């Protein structure tokens, strides 16, 4: 049984295999003793883990634990919220509401952002993203300190449908397991 088949067997045991493939795997389990043995082992492992997570007690008294939490909450609430530099600059222009005040506000804002020094921080905030494939999700990491903007592409589908499958060859280290 190759690695891919074993993983499909696992997905079938976990109820995560699409219906179209589930029937085929079910048939394999009925007819192949190695597949049946592996499925049984996976089910057994799930069985003995379920409800048997190790119970660990917090090694601190209730009072001590709470006192630390309470102090941390008070510290967090006492700290002023960080402002982005351009927000702080913006506040200076929050004049009484009127159409002219709003135009002045937008004008100063746009000039401030687009004519900023190249090492400034306003432009990095102007980012638009769009996911073009229904097979992926994304998360983003933005580090101004490292001058880096990272978009993580996360496949929602199984590895077969990986749109960014760079290595279609089997990894030499992943030997096919032999279930006897």
């Amino acid at each position, binding site marked *: 049984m190759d*690695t891919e088949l*074993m*993983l499909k067997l*696992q*997905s079938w045991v*976990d109820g*995560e295999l699409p219906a179209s493939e589930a029937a085929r795997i079910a048939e394999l389990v009925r007819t192949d003793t*190695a597949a049946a*043995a*592996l499925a*049984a*082992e*996976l089910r*057994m*492992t*799930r*069985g*003995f*883990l*379920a409800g*048997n*997570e*190790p*119970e*660990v*007690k*917090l*090694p*601190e008294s*209730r*009072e001590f*634990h*709470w006192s*630390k*939490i*309470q102090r*941390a*909450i008070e510290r*967090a609430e006492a700290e002023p919220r960080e402002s982005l530099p351009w927000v702080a600059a913006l506040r200076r222009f929050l004049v009484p509401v009127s159409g002219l005040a709003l135009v002045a506000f937008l004008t100063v804002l746009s000039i401030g952002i687009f004519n900023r020094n190249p090492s400034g921080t306003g432009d990095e905030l102007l980012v638009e993203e769009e996911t073009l494939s229904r097979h992926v*999700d994304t*998360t983003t990491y933005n580090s101004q300190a490292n001058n880096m903007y990272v978009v*993580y592409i*996360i*496949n*929602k*589908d*199984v*590895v077969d449908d*990986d749109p960014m499958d760079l290595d279609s060859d089997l990894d030499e*280290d*992943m*030997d096919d*397991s*032999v*279930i*006897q």
Partner: protein
Amino acid sequence: MATHPEIPEVSDEKLVRRAQRGNMPAFEELVGRHRDKIYARAFSMMRNEDDAVDLSQEAWVKGWQRLKQFQGESSFVTWMTRIVINLCLDQLRKHKRQRAESIEQLEDDLGGVERQMPAVTVNPTEGLERTELRARIDKALGQLSYEHRTVLILHEFEDLEYKEIAKRMQCSIGTVMSRLFYARRKMANLMMSWKREQQS
């Protein structure tokens, strides 16, 4: 510690609503009720008492700060568990580079003999008292790498689907499946080897 006599009789939902209105004693009661569970989750992931204490404390602080966002779509303790899991994942990602030098990681990188072992056909936990079973599971979890242990915990104890685990661990579903498979096989084989040791 001053406690309100009626608080122990109040449901979590009511306590959460009070805490959302700024009632600190209500939140304190919630912490008291669920501190072990939150700590246990942090400890099972971090395998280090100090880290688990710090992260569970941080989780409670975040819980207080975000309490208004909690809409009751899950139980309060499930919501808090997710917070501590995310904190643990962030911490583990930061420290993974240093831990790569450990022998445990090296064994995982080499591929693991367990992939090639025959299927375990006898239940190695049969006859074990629950305390002993949990102790063995705890010992076995300690022998997994952080990636394998995390996937196992998220799937088996948090009942998350592959997709959700992939999102939280920032990896593909295929990687989740490989890691889960490896972790389960290793668990089964460890339990079997301890059973044989006990019998011999």
